[in-house]
């Protein structure tokens, strides 16, 4: 059995929290501050995992299972995610559908756990989360479908490494549209700024943060780590789409990919520094725009 995909996966597991550190550091630097250490999320996770958990008496096993199943689901998605131009540990035809639904399952259990607390406040956040992802998911799948048409493959591990410079020359507009749609979805699904503000705990506008307010200790740690992994897997798809070079040498490809992830994190930091969060009523419009871009890209590849 080939060990390299598994080593890649361990690298992803270790480096995922660093991505958020880079984003926060970029935001701090643009604002003229020094900012938190790059490894801040690791410290937070370590602190949270050593704490005890407090559970409300109104919650049931659903609330306790939420973070665990959520993390397991995103790990399942990570198993299918190619590491830049190298194949994923697990691959089969049609695994892109499973990938989308691993992320769907993660969202579903988070929403269930939020509803299980019985707090009207968390119900509001859950409702928003579900509404927005109902718009984001079709856009994501249409983008995958378009890429499958361009590369003539139906597994993530053959589609994304299969995007070459020749594809960019022949189907450049379609690929650029898919990349733009995916960037919007990446920001929306990971609660980044034009859609949600990861820093505020302002009740009226929160989407993702509000759902996890009642979790504490190790549960919160699992949720934070799961969120970092989710950012990693979606970022990995975008980066492998945008880097059409493939050396065939393991460490060179890995270096290109990690460099791409670093640039992506800095880019997200810059976007967050430059933009304000959108009014909540404008968010569906933004996601509908991403859906339109993905649909147009798909039609360009079908002609």
């Amino acid at each position, binding site marked *: 059995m080939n060990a390299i995909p598994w080593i890649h996966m361990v690298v992803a597991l270790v480096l995922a929290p660093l991505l958020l550190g880079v984003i926060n550091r970029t935001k701090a630097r643009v604002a003229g501050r020094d900012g938190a250490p790059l490894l801040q999320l690791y410290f937070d996770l370590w602190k949270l995992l050593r704490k005890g958990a407090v559970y409300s008496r109104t919650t049931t096993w659903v609330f306790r299972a939420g973070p665990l199943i959520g993390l397991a689901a995103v790990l399942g998605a990570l198993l299918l995610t190619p590491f830049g131009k190298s194949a994923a540990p697990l691959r089969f035809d049609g695994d892109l559908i499973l990938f989308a639904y691993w992320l769907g399952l993660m969202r579903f259990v988070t929403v269930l756990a939020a509803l299980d607390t019985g707090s009207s406040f968390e119900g509001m956040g859950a409702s928003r989360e579900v509404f927005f992802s109902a718009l984001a998911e079709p856009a994501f799948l249409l983008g995958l479908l378009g890429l499958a048409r361009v590369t003539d493959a139906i597994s993530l591990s053959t589609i994304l490494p299969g995007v070459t410079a020749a594809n960019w*020359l*022949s189907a*450049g*507009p379609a690929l650029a*549209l898919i990349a733009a749609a995916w960037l919007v979805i990446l920001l929306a699904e990971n609660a980044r700024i034009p859609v949600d503000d990861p820093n505020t705990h302002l009740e009226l506008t929160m989407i993702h943060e509000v759902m996890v307010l009642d979790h504490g200790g190790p549960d919160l740690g699992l949720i934070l780590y799961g969120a970092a992994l989710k950012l990693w897997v979606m970022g990995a798809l975008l980066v492998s789409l945008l880097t059409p070079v493939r050396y065939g040498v393991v460490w060179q490809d890995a270096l290109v990919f990690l460099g791409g992830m670093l640039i992506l994190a800095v880019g997200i930091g810059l976007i967050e520094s430059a933009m304000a969060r959108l009014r909540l009523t404008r968010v*569906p*419009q933004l996601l*509908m*725009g991403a*859906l*339109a*871009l993905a*649909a*147009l890209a798909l*039609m*360009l590849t*079908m*002609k």
Partner: protein
Amino acid sequence: MGLDTLFVFLVLTSLILLGSSLLSSSIRVVALQGAVLSFLPFLVMEPGWAGRAVFLAALTMALKGIVFPTLLNRSLREANVRREMAPLVGYSLSLALGIALLILAFWLAGRLHGIGVGLSTLSLAAAFFMMFTGLFLIIARRKALTQVLGFLVLENGIYSFGLTVVGHIHWLVELGVLLDVFVAVFIMGIAIDHISREFDHINVDQLDQLKG
């Protein structure tokens, strides 16, 4: 490739118009669309038509990129109304319908494929999509100014349809069309001015209450 990018750009500007809520930014987007469209003659015309292409492109650029936006901005300023679109159909729903229209445009283009000279499905689809978007804006927005914008987008669609399908229309015909559009925009500007002076708004859905 260059042609594809241009048509994708035209479709994107139409999509932006469906989702945009400010009149002034919509005027800018229509101007941008017209300016991009003016490069089309260079890309589709047969060699040997260079002089005509340059003339047509310059005229289109001047009219659609500069004169129309200036006229529209002027009537927006004079009308002194709220600068929002006042849609009858919401922006998200407009975008969703836009996706449906896009699918319809590609389907129609696929059916008509092969009638013209060396044209791609995308060029036909983009032309149809601009026409649909224009009609939709005329129907689904309340301000009189957006009707002019819708008319301009519709005309952009017809213009690019003509250029890609027929290839060489006599230049007198194209000049005539451009002149017609110019006069239409001019007159609509004056009409908007009169409406706003008479009623303090330019909402066309209230015009059916006029009595002689």
